[in-house]
Each structure stands twice: as C-alpha cells, then as structure tokens.
C-alpha cells in the first residue's frame, strides 16, 4: 500500500509538529514579547506600527510586539503603569496629568510634532482665526474646556464670549447646524465630512500657539532603567515603520485596511487621513534629526502651554536618551 496509513499516533505527531511550529520560530529568533498600548481604535493613525510589524522590523530587533487597541473606555496610562504594556501612546497633557498623580512616566518620543486639535467649521460659516470664535457656538466635550481656555489666552480672545455646547464626538451637530464649529482632531471628523461630501474648514490650534506634543510615546522610569534594550528595539521599529509611511501613505492605508478587516475601515477615508497626518508628524526637525525627535525649544513651548492648562512640568518629563540610541 502506497498511501500512508492514518494512525492515531501519526495524527498526534503531525498535530504536535504543527503546534510546535510557531514556538520553534520564536525560539530561533528568541523574540521578547512586549506590548504597545495604542490610544485609540486601529486606524491609519498607527500605520507606522503596522508597517513595522508587517515587515518584521521588530522581529529583526528581537521583539515580538503585540499592538493593544485603545477605545473610548480604555485609558492608556493604567496598562503602562501596571507593566502590561511597555510603551503607551499618550499626549503631553495627559502624561503631565498622570505624573501629577504619581505615575513615573517619561516622554521618550513624539510622533505628532504639531498638536492635531483643530476648530472645524463649515465653508459657508467659517472660523479661520481664534478671534472669530467670539459669539460662536462651539460643540465639544466639556473635558476639553481647558484646551479652549488656553487657546483664548494665547490669542487674547474673550473666553466668556464663546458659547460651549457639550456634544458627543461626532460631526453631526455641526452638519445639522446645532453649532457653528467643533473642537476636534484635524485628522478624524474633518476627514469624515470630506468623505461625505461636506466642505469643511479647519483651523489648526498648533498654528495659533497651542504647543502640546501629541501621540507621544511614554514609558515608566523603571522600564527606562531596566528594559532599555527593549525600548530601543521598539522605537527603532517604530522609526523604520514611520519612515516607510512617509514615503507612501496610500500603501500604509491599504495595509491598515487589509490588516484589520473587522474594524469597519473605509479605504478612501484611511487614505485621506494618512495624507492629512503627514504635516503633523513630519517637519524640518524630523527631516534633520529623524522621526520622533523633539527639540529643547519645543519642550519649552510645551511647558508654557501646559502651564496654561494647569499643568506645571519641568523638562525632566521628556527623556531623549532612547531616541539618541536609536538614531545614534
């Protein structure tokens, strides 16, 4: 008989072999498992990380990285503090708040050089400068009141002359005319409106003095002391991923949609978002020093804006040593 006889033992061996396969590969690379806690649902917002994972750049660096999705009820800080994530994606204001509450975080890299907060309005009734906010209705989460206050102080605008309407995070109140403008991210609600054929104007708050590093990489002081090699490996993968992103944002959007078929992502939306993200993430500084870099000047500007938000911080909140190793 030429055909192989299927015995139970033979089946078991085959099954065991199949089950061992991933472990065998892992053993060969001796990859260390670490987690990166994202700040929101999977989307092209984190496409650099997907590129790093897809191309095996973390595997090359000896890491097996799990990307943990965020969500409306999934704050970044607890998993990073408790150690279930090595690095989290936060923002300088949230990190400063957590540090004030006793968390020992450092900002080890800055993905968004320019803060993505924007004031979005419809073209027929545009808001193009902070002064034009006076007498308008703005839809936003009340939690962001300090952000608007800071913008007003920075631009000498009467905060009390703006009417705040607490809304859900959706463009609907603006589209239906309930409010004149929205406080939102440059890269989400305005993109959604554009895809729906609604012409919207945005005023980037970063262009009016609001300097708060966003999409920052945070790690604990303990990790910076004890797990340096892993941090350097993780950040070097991020660096390669985001460099690839910069060269072809459409490909990054396509990869995102392909990697997360159950996330309900729309390719056109992702492509547009990927494109609009570029000026926020890449600047002359990053062209010169590399992705994620931050200058002492920008740190000083952040300290000034954070003070307006009620957060007293020192330059110690930032730690450039991991980036220096990555780029060096």
């Amino acid at each position, binding site marked *: 008989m030429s055909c192989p006889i299927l015995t139970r033992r033979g089946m078991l061996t085959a099954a065991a072999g199949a089950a061992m396969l991933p472990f065998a590969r892992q053993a060969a690379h001796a990859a260390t498992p670490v987690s990166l806690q994202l700040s929101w649902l999977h989307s092209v917002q984190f496409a650099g990380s997907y590129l790093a994972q897809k191309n095996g750049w973390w595997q090359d660096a000896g890491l097996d990285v799990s990307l943990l999705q965020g969500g409306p*009820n999934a704050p970044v800080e*607890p998993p990073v503090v408790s150690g279930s994530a090595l690095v989290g994606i936060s923002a300088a204001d949230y990190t400063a708040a957590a540090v004030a509450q006793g968390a020992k975080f450092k900002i080890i890299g800055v993905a968004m050089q320019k803060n993505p907060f924007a004031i979005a309005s419809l073209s027929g009734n545009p808001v193009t400068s902070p002064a034009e906010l006076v007498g308008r209705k703005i839809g936003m989460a009340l939690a962001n009141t300090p952000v608007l206050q800071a913008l007003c102080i920075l631009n000498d605008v009467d905060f009390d002359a703006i009417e705040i309407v607490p809304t859900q995070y959706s463009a*609907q109140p603006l589209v239906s005319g309930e409010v004149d403008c929205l406080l939102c991210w440059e890269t989400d609600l305005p993109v959604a409106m554009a895809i729906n054929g609604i012409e919207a104007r945005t005023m980037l708050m970063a262009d009016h003095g609001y300097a708060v590093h966003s999409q920052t990489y945070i790690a604990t002081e303990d990790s910076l002391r004890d797990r340096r090699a892993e941090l350097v490996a993780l950040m070097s993968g991020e660096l390669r991923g985001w460099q690839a992103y910069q060269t072809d944002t459409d490909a990054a959007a396509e990869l995102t949609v392909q990697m997360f078929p159950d996330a309900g992502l729309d390719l056109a939306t992702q492509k547009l978002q990927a494109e609009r993200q570029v000026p926020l993430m890449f600047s002359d500084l990053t062209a010169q020093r590399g992705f994620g870099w931050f200058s002492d000047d920008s740190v000083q500007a952040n300290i000034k804006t954070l003070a307006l938000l009620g957060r007293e911080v020192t330059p110690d909140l930032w730690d450039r040593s991991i980036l220096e190793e990555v780029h060096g």
Partner: protein
Amino acid sequence: MMRVASVGPPLLGGVLLIMGWGALAAVLRGGHLVAGPAEVAGWIAANPGLLGRALGKTLTNATLGFLAGNLVAIALAGVAMIWPRLLNLISGLALVVFCLPLIATGPILRVLMGPGDGPQIVLAALAVYYTTLIPLLTGLRATPAVWLDLVHSYGRGRWSELIHVRARAALPYLFAGLQIAAPAAFLGAMVGEFTGAEQGMGVLTIRFMRALDVPALWAIAVVAAAVSMVVYGAIGAVARMVLHDRPPVILSPPRGKPVSGLSRLFQPALLIAAVLVLWWAGMALPGMNPFFAKSPQDVLAALTTAPQAAATRDTLWTALTETAVFLLPGYVAGLMLGAGLAIALVLVPNLSTLVMPIAVALRSVPIVTTAPLIVLFLGRGALGTISLVAAMVFFPTLVACLHGMRQAPGQILDVFHIYAAGRLRQMAHIRIPAMLPAFFAAARMSVPAAILAVTVVEWLTTGRGLGSLMALSASVSDYNMLWAAVAVVTTISALCYAGVAAIERRILFVYAPEQVRP
C-alpha cells in the same frame, strides 16, 4: 386564557413601525441623523461579512455573559432563601457591585484580564445579574403560606421548601428577569468593547459614529435591536409553554415581627464592613497598581486629610447637586412610563406589537446612536436629560409589571367574569394589586439603573454632574476623584434603595404580606 394566534396585529405593527421609521428618515433627510429602511437594508446587503463577523463576536460574548450573570443571580437567590439571614447582605453586595460605573470597572477589567473577550463577557454578566436577582427574590416569596405549612408539616426544611414550592412560584418572575436581561446583555457586551476590544458591534458603532456613516450606524442599531427582540420573544414563548398553571390566590397572614433597634443597625453595619473589606481586598489583587486602584483609605484621605481635600469635596458636592436635579424626575418618569405602558398593553393587547419592539430597541441600542435624536427633539436641557434617563429605565419596569399582572389569580378573575366585570374593573381590583410585588421589585432595581443612566447621559450630552466628573477624572488620571465619585454614587444608590424598600414594606404589608417576611 386560550388565545387564538393571529398574524394580523403583529404584521400590522411591524409595517406601521417601518413606515414610521421611513417617514422620520424622510423628514430628517440631510441632517445625518437617521438612515431610512432602504438605506439600512442596502448597507446590510453590501456588508454581510463585516456585519456577520461583528454580530457573531458580540452575540457570543453577550450569550456567555447572559448565562453567567443569570446563573449567578439564581445561585445567589437560592442561597438567600436557604439562609435568610444572608438575604440583606447578599442583596446589598449585589447592589453595590451593580452600581460600579463602567468607566471605573472597564479599564481595571482590561488590565486584570488582558486583551481578549474577558471584559466584554464580565460587563455583559454585570449588566444582567441584578435585574434577574431582584425579581427572582420577589418570586421566591410569592407563595401561599399554606403550601409552606404543608412542607413543614412533613418535617422538611428550607431546601425542600425551595425545591418544591418556592422555585415553581418564582418561575414567572425568573422569566421576567430573563426577558429584561436579553437586551441588557447585548448592550453590555457592546459597551464592554469600548475598553479596547478588536472586533464587534460596539467597535463598529464608535467607528461609524465618527465617520458620520449614518446608514452603517443605523444598520448596527437595527441588527442589535432585532437580535434582542428575537431573544426577548423566544424567552416569552418558552415562558408561555412552561407556565400553564393558573396563578394561585396567595393568602398569607401578616407576620411582621417588630425588628429591634439594634438589629436594624446591625444589618447596614455588616454590609458596610463587607463592602470595605471586599474593596480593600480587590485593590490588593496582583496587577492592581496603586496609581489607578485606590483603596478605601486612599479615598478617605483624598476627602479629608489631603491638601486639596476641601476642593475635592466641593467638586463632588457640586457635581452631586447637578446630578440630583435630573435623577428623581427621570426615575419617577421612567417608573410611571413603564407601569403605565404595562397597564395600557394589558387593556389593549394589540398595542404590544407596536410598543414592544420600540421598548426593546431603546434598551438594546447604545445611547450614542439614539441620543442625537432625543437631543434634536427635546434639546439638551432638563427635558431632554430627563427623557433620556426615563427611556433607559422604563424597560425593566414595563416587563416586570407585564409579568406581574399575569399573576392575577385565576379563580378571582373567574368570579369577575361571572359578574361580567369589565377590563378596567379587573385592572383596578385584581391586576394592579397582583402587580404590586413585581412593580416594587422594578422600583428597587431601577434605583441604581437610573443613577447609572443619569451619569451616562451627563457624560454624553450635558457634560455636567457626576457622570461628566467621572469621565474627566479618568481622562486626567485623577483616580482618587474617580473612586470618590464611585463611592458617592454607590452610597446614594444604597440610600435611595433603602428608601424605596421602606415604602414597599408599608404597601406590601397590606397587599402582599408574603413578601414582607424574610
């Protein structure tokens, strides 16, 4: 009670609903608020794979949570019947756990359970166990005293009492609990996905809301509501198959033993001690970092000895007063709406094909989808807020009261039929008194539900009060404030619950004395 099944009314109800929905969508065209039936059907037809996978995921988690939550409720109720001394402790702890807001528990569950489906299943179970436990405890007491006397005369104890008498008496109430649980489990699983799940209907809801993809958003809502309606209907069908005994006349002598002052104080003291011990022990679990897991002494310190303690207390007090304004009207409106609709549905049964789908939908669709509509019609002021709260709490009352009215004793109804008494007279003299135990069970379980509803509405629409404070505290890592707010919410729920229970004792002492004894 033979009823001829007819297709006419349900079909008519369904058609009317879809026509109303289509008309609403047509009127609001262009506002990005409502997608009509055709758009929704088109989206579903174009995305069967995405929708199917998301539905499979959420439905699986909801089912597991439904089973786990209801089994826990049944086990707790059984324990409370066998050891009546534990009753107050069990129902007190159950209340406290039910009061824990999602915004506090979600991230902790995620840290403890890691990536995967754990938090979604736990949150679905947490959403259902309480609304099963409370009706069940009522049902287990809804027995004629003579039946229990019979068990005792054979020298049998509480176990036999539970198996042979109480369990059967409780069945109608159990089915009420299960019907209330069906949409709650689905919603619980969806909201659980907000803690960082990779796939499911909740994830898609957030995505589509931000993308202004109204047909997709409504397709998700319609499917969530349809699934909940099917499960609700199926449980109702099982109930009709199982419950063919006519409800007995429950005669029970009032045996109210005066409770001594000391014992009155002992029960709450024991509960408070148990809560504090469990809180403290829970926060000492591995992985619970003191940065976000605050123990009772941390919260006490933040409120008393910390440098900003006075400011913290002020903030909490302001938020509390802002919340209280909406709480009582919303609670009373929800309760009245639920009981009133139940009475209307018994008087005019054909209405139910129109009302029940809307009721189930309101309970199973996340508020993020429906809130913009209610805000549009009623505004963001007091009326809108109170209506949203009422919309979120009326469903358990409606279902409990419907089941309660079916407990009208058959023999007494026969007497009324002999005298050709009309529906209204039957309602006033038999059905409403028979409904009272179920109504009060609903009134008690609606207390924490109303408080949770207010906090959600505040978080999403008004941006004031305790709900907004909790969301803000979590976002800026002020976990002392978050846990202090949780403690306040829980304390208020417990106090209001005790108040409702005191009213209940006075009324049921007359109408259903079997409920008043332990």
